[in-house]
């Protein structure tokens, strides 16, 4: 039944042996490929090094012209004058926007996550989750447009002293932008809480879904939830288009949300689009501001990873 000779009267093994002679090319590929792949993998490392290097180089050069103390503790930002001023108003603007955004996104995002993981049926989830994904996929330039042309005039009807460019409407829209992030990452954390913990621990004893959510699921998923909030905060800090379009370009050391302000990111856009020549003080200053921004977000990203790793529950 099984005939080892193929009808061509050459066995497959013989054919393989003949082909072996050509194998040298194959060996070359076998050695070359991992090296090529490694080089590609190194590109991502070089990108990080490149970012650090460019930011640090221009930042150092900047601080040879402007005093570091003045820059970080100066309360008046006037980069286009001789007296350069301090970055505090930009940091204040960034914090104000992030604070408003978090105030909007955390309650709505968390409530959505609890609803999705504890209450919603599979069918409801199948409808709501893609909608949240759409919300996450809207480009920020669109959100900026929405903040400026809709939210800002709407709020203007409520607060009479409201400027057209203001921190409040930009902050609210940044908040809307990060809702899906908090909702989906927190829901992941809550869904990871095993059913045995819910059923055996509480539902079986007659607790309502709400009691289970608050007393069992939230505490168990807390680290994941906090990590998601920190990550969303980092997104809000680094957000550029919404604040550039809707928050204004007025460096302003204020915590009044109806005022026009400027964030770190918005200044970088302003500095880079103006008439800035290579190695001018403004050119260098956008790197110093960029470096400050980078450190902010890096700390938050690492914190978020640390929280979710360090407190990972072993179910």
């Amino acid at each position, binding site marked *: 039944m099984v005939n080892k000779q193929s009808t061509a009267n050459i066995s497959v093994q013989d054919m393989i042996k003949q082909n072996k002679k050509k194998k040298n090319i194959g060996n070359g590929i076998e050695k070359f490929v991992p090296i090529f792949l490694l080089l590609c993998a190194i590109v991502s490392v070089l990108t990080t090094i490149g970012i650090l290097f460019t930011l640090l180089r221009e930042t150092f050069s900047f601080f040879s012209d402007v005093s570091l103390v003045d820059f970080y503790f100066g309360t008046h930002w006037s980069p286009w004058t001789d007296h350069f001023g301090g970055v505090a108003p930009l940091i204040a603007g960034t914090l104000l926007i992030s604070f408003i955004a978090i105030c909007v996104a955390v309650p*709505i995002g968390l409530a959505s996550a609890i609803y999705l993981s504890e209450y919603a049926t599979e069918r409801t989830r199948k409808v709501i989750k893609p*909608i949240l994904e759409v919300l996450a996929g*809207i480009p920020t330039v669109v959100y900026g447009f*929405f903040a400026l042309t809709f939210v800002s005039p709407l709020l203007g009807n409520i607060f009479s002293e409201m400027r057209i460019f203001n921190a409040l409407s930009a902050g609210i829209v940044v908040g809307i932008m990060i809702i899906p992030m908090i909702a989906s990452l927190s829901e992941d954390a809550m869904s990871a809480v095993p059913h045995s913990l819910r059923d055996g621990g509480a539902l079986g004893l007659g607790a309502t879904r709400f*009691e289970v959510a608050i007393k069992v699921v939230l505490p168990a998923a807390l680290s994941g939830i906090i990590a998601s909030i920190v990550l969303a905060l980092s997104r809000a800090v680094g957000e550029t288009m919404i604040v550039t379009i809707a928050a204004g370009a007025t460096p302003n050391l204020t915590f009044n949300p109806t005022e026009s302000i400027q964030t770190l990111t918005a200044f970088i856009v302003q500095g880079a689009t103006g008439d800035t020549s290579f190695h001018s003080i403004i050119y260098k200053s956008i790197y110093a501001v960029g470096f400050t921004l980078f450190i902010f977000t890096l700390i938050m990203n690492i914190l978020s990873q640390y929280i979710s790793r360090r407190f990972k529950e072993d179910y």
Partner: protein
Amino acid sequence: MTQQINISQIKGRVTRNKIYKGIFILAISLAMLALATLLYRILSQGLGYLSIDFLKNYPAPYIEEAGIFAGLMGSVFMMCITAPVSIILGVSTALYLEEYATQNRFTRFIQVNVQNLAGIPSIVFGLLGLTLFVYLLAMGYTLIAGALTMSLLVLPVIVVASQEAIRSVPKEIREASIAMGATKWQTIWRIVLPASIPGIITGAILALSRAIGETAPPLIIVGAAAAIYTIPDSFLSKYTVMPIQIYSWTARPQEEWQFVAAAGIIVLLAILLCMNAVAVWIRNKFQKRY
């Protein structure tokens, strides 16, 4: 007696459960209401200005003549560079990490580094591009400088998506290939890659659609200009992209330009919607074959 107290207490708890459920539903409805309002506003403002001419025209000082053609083609040309560069680099990095790298400090370092890159604000990538591509490599404010900056920006997303796709290929079919006398690369090229390609493509499309929509901050830095009256004819052309074009219309003080911006946004969203639909279609078609 005690029985009655329990019942009323339970009733209270059940009511509370219902109230909170209502609050949660309200919260999620708010999020969806925001989305609906946003889409409604944009459609109601922009649809009137959307026309074939709008798609074919270059930016112009008058509303009637303004169009998104330069931005549209700029985005397309940019993707022609960014897609191959970022996919080749991203898939290769993922293959290295998943197939070749031994578990040591260096591997973990690359992995953590990729994660952290994904968290860096896009505008910081713009600063890297400005120094590296525009000045050090003397590319100037050109299409290629912008496209390479974008490639680095989307790289981490593609790496992570590809890693997940590669990891989902079962160990058993790799073993089957190795046991046939296939070399490592033959196994990767003929078995692992074909099996993981739907996942990789889905991830790449999603990443690139983000890149099309989110190009604005880094590209403003590396010099995409708003007033471009030609489409790029080489890597070293000046260029603009859709989000930048929309941004520049939004930033104009006269209110009429908002409607032009809204029309531009409709075009942008339509393209993103198509890309996402394709990605979802691929994901559903090839899901769970093992």
